[in-house]
């Protein structure tokens, strides 16, 4: 029993440490990748394939969010940081590699007849200026707009790309994941939301923005505007092991894995 209590105390103190953002030191022979939870599932998939080829280099993938990933990269507690937002201020000193692009799709319920909105209309819906579907030529019913919670990378990108300096209205509903937004929009005929293009399915309908529907083609030729890069970050130039992983991700094999997941591949490196 005493041992049980001791074990529990150890567990509790470990939880305390991990919630403080303690990622653990970079150990030799192991790559730690941490940050954006939007990129995390894809990195996990890439890491699985990578470790089949190079079992001597284990890759440990962790979440934490873009900001935590960036901070951990600056502190040197992780080998590679992941960010689904652009870098600001002193973060720009990091070495950033675009691994792919992700489009943010504006989605409505399939029962909604509207197919096209302008960026300005989307912004007005989220700022509360347009609050009724009648103003957009549909029925007299209030719009149930859904956004993501403050701090989310998807919300950050949406704010940068669509809202600009305008605030999202306080009356807008908030859900805490892409999946939850899709669920609400899929059930509510009068809802509108924004989610990562990779997880759009038949429950929701994508809306063309400024005449362009989000797709791999329109993202690649840059005609669809609401696109964010998925970044890998290193502090200075990457070490040999990190370089091996990054090269794998950018290889045609890695890029094929990403495009199968609904992301838009890049070819070659770019700085951001």
């Amino acid at each position: 029993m005493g041992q049980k209590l001791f074990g529990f105390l150890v567990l509790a103190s470990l939880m305390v440490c991990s919630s403080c953002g303690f990622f653990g030191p970079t150990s030799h022979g192991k790559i730690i990748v941490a940050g954006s939870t939007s990129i995390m599932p894809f990195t996990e998939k890439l890491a699985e394939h990578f470790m089949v080829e190079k079992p001597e280099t284990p890759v440990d993938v962790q979440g934490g969010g873009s900001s935590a990933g960036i901070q951990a990269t600056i502190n040197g507690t992780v080998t590679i940081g992941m960010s689904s937002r652009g870098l600001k201020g002193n973060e720009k000193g990091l070495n950033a590699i675009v691994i792919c692009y992700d489009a943010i799709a504006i989605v409505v319920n399939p029962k909604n007849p509207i197919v096209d909105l302008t960026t300005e209309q989307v912004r007005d819906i989220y700022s509360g200026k347009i609050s009724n579907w009648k103003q957009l030529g549909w029925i007299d019913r209030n719009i149930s707009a859904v956004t993501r919670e403050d701090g989310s990378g998807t919300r950050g990108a949406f704010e940068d790309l669509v809202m600009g300096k305008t605030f999202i209205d306080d009356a807008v509903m908030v859900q805490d994941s892409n999946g939850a937004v899709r669920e609400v929009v899929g059930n509510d005929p009068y809802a509108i939301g924004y989610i990562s293009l990779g997880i759009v399915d038949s429950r929701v309908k994508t809306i063309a923005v400024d005449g362009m529907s989000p797709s791999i083609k329109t993202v690649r030729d840059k005609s669809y505007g609401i696109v964010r890069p998925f970044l890998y970050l290193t502090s200075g130039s990457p070490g040999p092991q990190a370089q091996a992983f990054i090269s794998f991700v950018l290889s045609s094999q890695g890029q094929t894995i990403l495009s199968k997941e609904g992301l838009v591949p890049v070819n070659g490196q770019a700085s951001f």
Partner: protein
Amino acid sequence: MGKPHSSRETGIKWLLTLFALSSLLFLFVIFAFILAEGLPLFVKVGPGHIIFGMKWAPTKGHFGIFPMIVSSFMVTFGALVFGASLALACATYLSEYAGRKTKLFLKPALELLAGIPSVVYGFLGVVYIVPLIREYLGGPGFSILSTSLVLGIMILPTIISISFDALMSVPAGYREGSLAMGATKWQTVYRVVLPAARSGILASFILGMGRAIGETMAVIMVAGNALKIPTSLLDPLRTLTSNIALELAYATGDHRSALFSTGVVLLVIIMFLNLVANFWVKKRTAR
């Protein structure tokens, strides 16, 4: 066993005392941790800007949680409106009218209600209550009304079991005396038993409030989590608990501290409610 009997007994006593004290230790650690994380922001931006601030945009330097405090109390009140009346009726039936066999069946059934995980309540709310409200009453469905209904059901077991105990502890002589004076059964229940159990019933309401204000998962699922103070029963809202759970995943720096500050406010509210409830229970037992 080798060891003398008495020393083993003392050993067990001390071991159990240690475990009993460890719960105090955990309480202390939780307190210390939340205060250490949450108080620095109170000092930095000022308690007024947090508690009475209207704007919550923690990544842009606004940490006001006043709308959430108001919303938390609104749904708690709503839950009481639905839950308390139903629960009190149920407890009164159980203690005054139900036969021994009905009681034996109903009591465990109600206790089972308390054992259902909150995510299940939330799920039922999202799948049935929210669409019904959207369809027949309008609005997005995620609203004070749906949240109050779900919370009202969730606080039933708490209120029922505590007010049941309060009603049962009313001495049988009270009822007999009233009946002997020619009062009917209902007059006895309404004029004698319920007033005699008043403080225990009030305590059960307060503890039900504590349960409602602290509920998180079910609320996130049915409340819609919008930041505005709701102006109609059909408007979405965000409570203190759901604010923490919604945003903790990505929060760093001041944003993270702001969530702990939300926790500090919640802790104070819940401590206050428990103190009041304890006070009432004590008053009852002292009499």
